[in-house]
């Protein structure tokens, strides 16, 4: 009786696993290195990393929800930051932010178009565009300096996009909250969200119900590109400068956050709340390694393992939850 109700809970709330992990990790980190990890400064910095990674992962989770995958978000993130930083001094923060979002939308459109038009595996394709735009970012930063002069980093609008704090936390965090609420309303309470999940659940069924599958996928890719570029904007705004390597490894972190958060890799199941918690867990681990003076390269090794372990345990958990009908 007890078991079946737990199964029911797991079946309907895929984010439960990551929530438990998050609580345990916070407890462990707080006890094992209390003053180094759980101080206000470090927590605020974790909130900022969670915010940019979270926005990136939210976009990636929408694409994952349609049954595709977008690995190119790391480069889109970098391009977003470069576009914002390259133009903010001349045209002001809001137009620069819009320009960065447009660039992100363009990359998303390209990905979505190539995937839906030619039926290419989205993982392979976005892996290629990841490289293409990484190369573009490196080429752009050769000879150009992408940094904002200090005297221009104080305006209210500049602070609005990651360049300052609000209520003691970087503004990026409030953007993440806003993004989470808007996307949750979209995904769970509008026809567009319903169709997105239907496409991921069963393309054949979605098609037979008159849903334009390719259009739904294309929109998810565009939305993902915009969110990745916005995340890049917020990161760029915080740092005030960027190089061509910005956003490296972010794609894998985003995918890891999605899988950790209880999104099905093959689509149809998205937990936006879980994704944000997943981003928090990854940021916490990263910060834990940093404050304890562990080589940052360990994080790369850990990240690869986390992705695989998260995917396997997600699969096992679902199988277990579905076993009793």
């Amino acid at each position: 009786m007890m078991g079946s109700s737990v199964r029911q809970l797991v079946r309907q709330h895929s984010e439960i696993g990551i929530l438990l992990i998050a609580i345990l990790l916070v407890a462990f980190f707080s006890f094992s290195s209390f003053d180094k990890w759980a101080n206000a400064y470090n927590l605020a910095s974790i909130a900022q990393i969670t915010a940019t990674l979270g926005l990136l992962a939210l976009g990636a989770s929408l694409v994952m929800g349609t049954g595709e995958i977008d690995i190119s978000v790391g480069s889109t993130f970098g391009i977003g930051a470069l576009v914002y930083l390259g133009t903010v001094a001349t045209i002001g923060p809001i137009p620069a932010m819009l320009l960065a979002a447009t660039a992100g939308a363009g990359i998303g459109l390209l990905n979505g178009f190539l995937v839906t038009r030619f039926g290419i595996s989205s993982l392979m394709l976005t892996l290629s565009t990841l490289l293409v735009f990484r190369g573009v970012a490196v080429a752009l930063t050769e000879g150009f300096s992408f940094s904002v002069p200090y005297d221009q980093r104080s305006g209210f609008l500049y602070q609005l996009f990651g360049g300052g704090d609000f209520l003691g936390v970087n503004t990026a965090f409030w953007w993440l909250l806003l993004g989470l609420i808007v996307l949750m309303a979209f995904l769970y309470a509008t026809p567009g969200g319903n169709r997105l999940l239907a496409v991921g659940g069963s393309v054949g069924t979605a098609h037979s119900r008159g849903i334009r599958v390719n259009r739904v996928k294309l929109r998810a890719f565009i939305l993902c590109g915009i969110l990745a570029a916005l995340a890049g904007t917020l990161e760029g705004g915080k740092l005030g400068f960027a190089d061509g390597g910005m956003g490296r490894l972010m794609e894998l972190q985003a995918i890891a956050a999605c899988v950790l958060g209880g999104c099905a890799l093959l689509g149809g199941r998205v937990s936006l709340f879980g994704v944000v918690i997943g981003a928090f867990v990854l940021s916490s681990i990263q910060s834990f390694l940093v404050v304890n003076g562990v080589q940052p390269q360990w994080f790369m090794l850990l990240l690869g393992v986390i992705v695989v372990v998260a995917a396997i345990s997600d699969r096992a958990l679902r199988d277990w939850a579905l076993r009793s009908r």
Partner: protein
Amino acid sequence: MSVTPMNKNAPLIEVRNLDLHFGAFHALKNVSVSFDSGQLIGLVGDNGAGKTTLIKVLSGIHKPNSGEVYFAGKRVKEFHPKLAIKFGIETIQQSVGLCDNLSIARNFYLGREPVKRWFGIPFLDFKKMRDASTKVIRTFGLRENVSADDQVEMLSGGERQSIKIGRAVEFKNRVVIMDEPTNHLSVREREHVNELAQQLRDQGLLVIYITHDIHQVHKLADRIVIMENGEKVTDVAKDEMTADELEEVIRCGGRVVDTSKEVEPS
């Protein structure tokens, strides 16, 4: 987009010289057939005979290589399930129709979700979605503990089929195509489905009922169309031939047989 009948006398659906290839496989060979409102058509044939392919063309899933399709006298130029649904063609298929990952209520209106606007933003009308699907759950005798918010993956095969048929009944359609609708159902559920098919016909709809079982459909149908190897081989009113005679036609691969020299099947 609404279809205005061009010609009152035109058949509701007319198909002329339809051809469809899948690679080297010739799925439909020069098929011509027409269907009128208020009829229950039994579309019969063996596996691979082309009956499912034919209805996939009618429901907009496949585009024919050549040939014409007319709906209410109007030529159909673009093939997409969305247009078929707009024309009022509802298809109940064997394998697709419900997304396992969504709740029953979300599946019910999939593709034409009812909305309530808040500040101009179209939000899903959950109350309407729940009410309509709960009604179907109750009338079709699904398990007591099934609710509209349950995931479809919890349902049995028969329950899924009931939801699909209930959905076809709920929307005011002109054509209901049933592809092997009783395949996974219990005897009681099967009778219920067959009654529903006849009710739809009596309401003036065109019902196309696809099955292997000639005896079952012969009791229901007004007309029987038999397909074999992608071709239409027989198209008769129910009274013209008995179920046994039709079965003989199917067994002999559609060739006209002389029933006087019947060979006993071993």
